[in-house]
């Protein structure tokens, strides 16, 4: 298993108010964190992904939008190793070829994935969910005698604060509200100190208040890791991308356009295939 690679940012340094200003750190064009080239996935006769290219820079928050069946989730499946593409390349960081790794290895290499439906360990208390997600020893024979270290305890506490879940730390995760589960799942991903965080429709099914809390949480994570957010809710996308953030539009398995939200809204092809409907 590969080590998690170079960690350029420290977890927790991005306190909620650190990046409130509209000019968040501009992506460094010399450092790509995720690189997809010519990825094609075919299910039976249908091309779920057709020659997709995507470039995510370190520290970037990229929103991906597109109608149902555009291949957004399939793209996440490819990055995280759930689906193997017919052709193409997927590179993490400088030169780590993700196509050669399986799901647990990709996760250990620093790709965190949030599912569309919040998926947490419902029977475990909230703090145990976080503890399980902590990057410690993952091999089964080491787990037999594992004790809770003070480092783990501190990290769990830190994440509970960050996600606002401290009051429910000892509750079974299954008893949490939908929004709390979403935040818990993101908290679990943060425990792994990911380099890239993939969020699949994080605001789906949430109340306005919950969406707002989530946007704040995502905002506070900007300095921590790069993020790719797949989303339907255009208000939420506008909130995340701001004026300068790049937005990728997908349709029918292709990348249609990339640009700021304003540029995209004016783009003819996008209007034809998505927004105009």
């Amino acid at each position, binding site marked *: 298993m590969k080590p998690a690679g170079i960690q350029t940012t420290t977890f927790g340094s991005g306190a909620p108010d650190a990046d409130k200003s509209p000019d968040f750190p501009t992506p460094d064009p010399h450092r790509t964190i995720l690189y997809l080239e010519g990825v094609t996935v075919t299910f039976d006769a249908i091309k779920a992904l057709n020659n997709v290219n995507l470039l995510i820079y370190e520290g970037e928050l990229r929103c991906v939008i597109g109608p149902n069946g555009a291949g957004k989730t399939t793209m996440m499946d490819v990055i995280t190793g759930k689906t193997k593409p017919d052709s193409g390349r997927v590179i993490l960081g400088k030169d780590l070829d993700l196509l050669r790794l399986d799901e647990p290895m990709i996760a250990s290499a620093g790709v965190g994935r949030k599912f569309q439906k919040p998926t947490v360990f*419902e029977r475990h208390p909230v703090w145990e969910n976080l503890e399980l997600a902590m990057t410690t020893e993952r091999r089964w024979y080491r787990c037999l005698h594992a004790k809770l270290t003070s480092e783990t305890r501190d990290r769990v506490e830190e994440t509970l604060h960050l996600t606002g879940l401290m009051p429910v730390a000892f509750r079974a995760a299954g008893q949490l509200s939908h929004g709390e589960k979403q935040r818990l799942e993101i908290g679990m991903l943060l425990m792994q100190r990911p380099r890239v965080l993939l969020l699949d429709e994080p605001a789906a099914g949430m109340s306005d208040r919950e969406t707002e809390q989530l946007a704040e949480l995502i905002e506070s994570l900007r300095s921590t890791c790069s993020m790719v957010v797949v989303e339907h809710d255009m208000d939420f996308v506008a909130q995340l991308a701001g004026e300068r953030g790049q937005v990728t539009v997908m349709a029918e398995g292709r990348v249609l356009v990339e640009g700021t939200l304003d540029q995209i809204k004016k783009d003819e092809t996008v209007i034809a295939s998505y927004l105009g409907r």
Partner: protein
Amino acid sequence: MSVAVSEAPVTFHLPVRQRLFGRREWIAFWAVVGFVLAATPICALATPASSPFYLSTYALTLVGKIMCYALVALSLDLVWGFCGVLSLGHGLFFALGGYAMGMYLMRSIGLDGVYHSPLPDFMVFLDWKALPWFWQGTEHFLYTLLLIVLVPGVVAWIFGYFTFRSRVKGVYLSIITQAMTFAAMLLFYRNETGFGGNNGFTDFKRILGFPIAAPGTRVCLFLLTFLVLAGSFLLCRFLVKSRLGRVVTAIRDAESRLMFLGYNPLGYKLFVWTLSAVLCGIAGALYVPQVGIINPSEMSPTNSIEMAIWVAVGGRGTLLGPIVGAFLVNGAKSFLTASFAEYWLFFLGAIFVIVPIYLPQGVIGLFKPPRTK
């Protein structure tokens, strides 16, 4: 560990490691162990047969047999209740352990068999002149102990490796386990396989030189079974309370989430699965000298399904529940088959209907306070 939810705790207290039991549970555990260890020899050996406290050989054998079943239920709960792998083939591991012990017991008969031959009777009957290679060494008890652990363990490991690696799950896995035990049963029914065909092994005379039917030997076997059951219970409790146990229950509840957190479930599943099979094999090995017979019907799919019923009745995912369930179902079975033989299957059918509807958490769920939301 209970913290008021309404107010955020000022300091964050987490246990370094979870305790196996609370104080009262430990006292109850040792009280039961002490009582059984002291009372069984007295009631079985030193009490006159007329006394109401007398423990007959029949009762010893019956309870000893049910304790073996309880160990099976415990081991099945470990994989089903905690890892979410419903095995309908644990009868195979039980029988393999039983056959390993049976081989030793057959060899211990020596020249006292019907044909007064050093070979087991069924081999003489088949006109075999020498022991097959896999019977070599089975006269040694220590080697037999090794076989009891290794044979079910290796079979389970190989089976588990290929199924878990291919990510076979749920009903499909259950059906494959069922097919596995059925295939093994057909294999063991054949005389050429070398395990006595459909008659299996029986007519045992002695174990480690002691006459197998003597009350003293019976008491020893009974207590040994009890100690193994109690020890396995502690072992399983330790496992599910460890970090490994937390990971394994997480596999049960959301395997893909765990995989995308960087865990490879294969090792965890294989460990729990193999351990469960080994415990099951040990149960079979303790069962055979007490019941006095092992044959391929132990591998029949219905037996394995009944094992799952014991777990479901007692309450899966509780460890104690399946032990209780094994006693309840088998106690009822011996009572009903003795008194109203024709009603047993109706009773079994009624359990099938009643337990999932009214007792989804099993009998043990009745004694737990309902979960507060």
